């Protein structure tokens, strides 16, 4: 085909030399992606590879009476047709979810949501496989579905999970945090109590690349090779070992380039298991790649919380307590991916950035006939919901007190000298200095001037709104004493090997989906041992090549794996110092580290570089007593706490009173994620999250009709922001390092997704103040804003 010559390298080499450590650096992964030479799962083509397509349920709730596959089996090009009954014979009809529930791989008894997997076909090409799906004859006995989450626990609600022994209702779990009595006492003596019902509708991460896998089972070697769109290759390998009974060392999970994850690629989906079974059954490599509709209707959704928020305060605006009651829709199977002791994820941080006296949350989670999931879309394990709740209710309080929302927040912030700060729900915020972040956002925005402009516009009948959100995130799960996923501790391994010529390879347990790990992790190693990033190969996403760890989600790569990288580099540096002392014939104490070399204190001319040390470590000649040859180390890092980034966001909207169309005119984001490794990449992460926020606040929602038909099953129905719906982002930053992270970094991947929706909604509600609007639920589409303007705002579900 096209001849592609070797890429020109000079420009990039030069860039990669500077900085040797932290700072803006162009990305090492870009040259291949820019040339169309990335390798995504669907790009994997193996000799003799077959294609798999999945038949899905058209009904939300139905008994599967019979499945006739005879016509499909006889279709041209078809190699295998597999049903739930086939899997039952193999003991594979059900699989565990990441929340200790079970989920059907292929339905045997019932289908429980529209789009559920019923059978699959393996054929010569993707078209033949799809054709054959049409020939599978399934007889369903349609049952009443549970769609309205508020009716899920009604006594006459149809029972969804009759597969669970002894189950008589659709209750999933109860959870509470904080102190109910203390909170009640605080509310009883408060001057002001504000209550607001707030819905965070179901949304979907919808990464540009859908989910898929290529399975290649070698029956002779007994080895399974699986390329798949996974954010957590090691966790997936262990689960495949448990589910399929294959020995773990005979499973190689490869996550190649991933076209965006946002939490959508954390769970194990039935399709992955089907691909594995397909390869075992046919003896050939099998590719499964879902289409967009399959992605939207069957894979991990996000949110779906119905919340009642209450806030208590003094008349002069001192917040005393926050209380909430949540009804959580978990869909047909509890497929939430969160640490097992945290069924509501980290929703417990709903007390936000404020120093209050008491807090309490009670949550009930239920099953409904909708797709499973819950934790996804850059939510930091439900912190999106928590931050939305507190930042919305604080604005409601500001309205009630007739107080400026910025002033109210400034008055209630946790103060710098209070850190580490233990919240009323037991979270220990590691560090923070909130006021400078808030002030910077207000300065960039020109806050006072914006308020003046708003006043003038209001006088002319124009609708302009200014919305503020201040968030504290909790990222970097997590300390293994209380955080695990299905018994797997949330630690991360890292290995660093310096070759004789001073080039290095670092192997990570986490996996980029666009966050730029190949660049930032090279920078972390470079910062610690002085080898230029261009000389450091970052290996990740292949379980045969990398140490065990739990993967990339919940903004945990920098807080956990980034710490592992820094510490493994320090181990290497410590060993290098021993070797340097022998090379320079001085004691270890006589040496000082000047990035890239060890020098004799007071005699900078006497020094050896890390590259010289690496050669000596592998070369001839004696090493100091007790020092082994080679220059490498490995580590498994168990974080002592989460890290707590924060940020101040200000949004300016204009609303057309004639059409109720909301236009985001400006958005100012000031983030504090501690030490900044690569500011260019941080800014990119923030921009992306802000765009998610516009999507959720104004456009995106997965809704269902009363029969359980998914109404957001294509990108024509599920609207995602384009370049026309978002402004040019304005960003700033402050730096409050994490005291317990070796380089002080905190993680930033989800901050903007968490922090931006309340700023936008607060801005819209602020704009609608002349109409007496105190709250309106997302998504704030023109019709929903129009209704709010006319006093008939209704919840979206």
């Amino acid at each position, binding site marked *: *085909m096209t001849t*592609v010559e070797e890429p020109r390298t000079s420009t990039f080499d030069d860039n990669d030399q500077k900085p040797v450590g932290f700072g803006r650096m162009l990305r090492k992964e870009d040259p291949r992606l*820019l040339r*169309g030479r990335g390798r995504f799962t669907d790009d994997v083509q193996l000799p003799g590879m077959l294609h798999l397509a999945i038949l899905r349920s058209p009904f939300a709730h139905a008994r599967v009476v019979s499945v006739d596959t005879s016509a499909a089996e006889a279709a041209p090009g078809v190699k295998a047709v597999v049903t739930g009954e086939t899997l039952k014979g193999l003991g594979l009809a059900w699989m565990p979810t990441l929340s200790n529930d079970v989920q059907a791989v292929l339905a045997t008894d019932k289908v429980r949501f529209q789009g559920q997997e019923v059978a699959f076909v393996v054929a010569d090409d993707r078209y033949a496989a799809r054709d054959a799906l049409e020939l599978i004859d399934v007889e369903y006995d349609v049952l009443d579905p549970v769609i309205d989450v508020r009716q899920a626990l009604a006594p006459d609600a149809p029972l969804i999970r009759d597969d669970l022994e002894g189950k008589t209702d659709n209750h999933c779990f109860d959870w509470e945090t904080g102190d109910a009595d203390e909170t009640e006492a605080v509310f009883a003596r408060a001057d002001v109590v504000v209550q607001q019902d707030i819905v965070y509708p179901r949304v979907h991460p919808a990464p540009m690349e859908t989910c898929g896998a290529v399975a290649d089972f070698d029956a002779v070697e007994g080895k399974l090779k699986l390329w798949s769109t996974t954010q957590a290759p090691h966790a997936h390998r262990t689960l495949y070992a448990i589910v399929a009974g294959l020995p773990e060392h005979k499973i190689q999970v490869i996550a190649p380039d991933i076209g965006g994850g946002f939490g959508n690629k954390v769970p194990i989906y039935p399709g992955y298991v089907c691909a594995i079974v397909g390869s075992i059954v046919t003896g050939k490599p099998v590719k499964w790649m879902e289409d967009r509709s399959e992605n939207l209707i069957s894979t991990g959704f996000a949110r779906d919380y119905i919340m009642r928020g209450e806030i208590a305060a003094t008349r002069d605006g001192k917040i005393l307590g926050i209380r909430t009651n949540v009804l959580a829709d978990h869909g047909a199977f509890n497929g939430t991916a969160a640490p097992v002791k945290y069924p509501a994820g980290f929703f417990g941080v709903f007390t936000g950035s404020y120093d209050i006296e008491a807090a309490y949350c009670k949550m009930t989670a239920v099953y409904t006939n909708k797709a499973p999931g819950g934790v996804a879309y850059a939510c930091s394990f439900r912190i999106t919901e928590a931050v939305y709740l507190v930042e919305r209710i604080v604005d409601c309080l500001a309205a009630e007190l007739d107080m400026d929302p910025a002033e109210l927040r400034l008055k209630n912030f946790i103060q710098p000298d209070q850190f580490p700060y233990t919240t009323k729900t037991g979270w220990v915020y590691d560090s923070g200095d909130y006021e400078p972040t808030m002030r910077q956002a207000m300065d960039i925005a020109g806050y006072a001037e914006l308020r003046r402009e708003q006043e003038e516009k209001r006088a002319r009948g124009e609708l302009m709104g200014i919305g503020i959100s201040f968030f504290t995130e909790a990222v970097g799960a997590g300390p293994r004493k209380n955080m695990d996923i299905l018994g797997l501790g949330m630690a991360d391994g890292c290995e660093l090997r310096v070759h004789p010529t001073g080039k290095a390879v670092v192997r990570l347990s986490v996996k980029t989906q666009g966050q730029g790990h190949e660049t930032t992790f090279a920078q972390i190693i470079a910062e610690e041992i002085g080898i230029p990033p261009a000389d450091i190969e970052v290996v990740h996403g292949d379980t045969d090549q990398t140490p065990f760890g739990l993967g990339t989600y919940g903004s945990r790569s920098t807080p956990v794996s980034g710490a592992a990288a820094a510490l493994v580099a320090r181990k290497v540096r410590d060993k290098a110092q021993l070797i340097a002392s022998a090379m320079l014939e001085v004691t270890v104490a006589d040496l000082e580290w000047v990035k890239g070399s060890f020098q004799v204190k007071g005699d900078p001319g006497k020094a050896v570089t890390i590259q010289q040390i690496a050669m000596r470590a592998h070369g001839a000649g004696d090493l100091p007593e007790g020092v082994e040859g080679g220059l490498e180390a490995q580590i498994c890092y168990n974080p002592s706490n989460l890290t707590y980034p924060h940020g101040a966001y200000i949004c300016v909207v204009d609303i057309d009173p004639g059409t109720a169309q909301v236009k985001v005119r400006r958005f100012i984001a000031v983030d504090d994620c501690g030490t900044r490794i690569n500011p260019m990449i941080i800014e990119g992460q923030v921009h992306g999250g802000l765009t998610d926020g516009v999507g959720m606040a104004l456009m995106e929602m997965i809704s269902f009709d009363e029969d359980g038909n998914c109404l957001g099953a294509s990108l024509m129905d599920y609207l995602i922001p384009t370049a026309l719906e978002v402004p040019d982002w304005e960003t700033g930053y402050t730096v409050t390092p994490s005291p317990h992270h070796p380089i002080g970094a905190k993680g930033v991947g989800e901050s903007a997704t968490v922090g931006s929706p309340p700023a936008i909604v607060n801005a819209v509600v602020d704009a609608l103040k002349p109409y007496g609007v105190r709250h309106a639920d997302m998504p704030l589409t023109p019709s929903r804003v129009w209704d709010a303007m006319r006093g008939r705002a209704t919840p979206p579900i």
Partner: protein
Amino acid sequence: MQVTMTVNDVEVTREIEGRLLLVHFLRDTLSLTGTHWGCDTSNCGTCVVWLDGEPVKSCTVLAAMADGHEVRTVEGLAKGAELDPIQEGFMQCHGLQCGFCTPGMMMTCRALLDKNPDPTDAEIREAISGQICRCTGYSTIVRSVRWASVHEAAAAQEAGAQA
């Protein structure tokens, strides 16, 4: 049926099914996997290639419709070892993260600059409004196109001065 077309300046002839989509022809038949498949409904634009110099969404074009025509994909954007300024702009301005929408974005942006070498930010946003990027938030893509525009203008001026 048999189709013959020119893909990235190379003539190819293949026997295909009449219903084969251009995106699958490029990816599966020709192994040009730089063009991606994202939505099937012409909404996401990750599959954008050029058909006779015009950006089209190859998930909704039959390979048969390209018979006798010229197709250019991301693999044909660089001139040999030399990156196109658009590619370099995306790199310099962090116009990509996961890289999945990037090939389609760059094909559209290259076509824009060919017609309008000095577009405004609004014109750039309009040009890419049929495409979705889930990672970047678009500001850096706009900057990337501006980077390419400015550098192409400077290079043209320099070439003019030398001539």
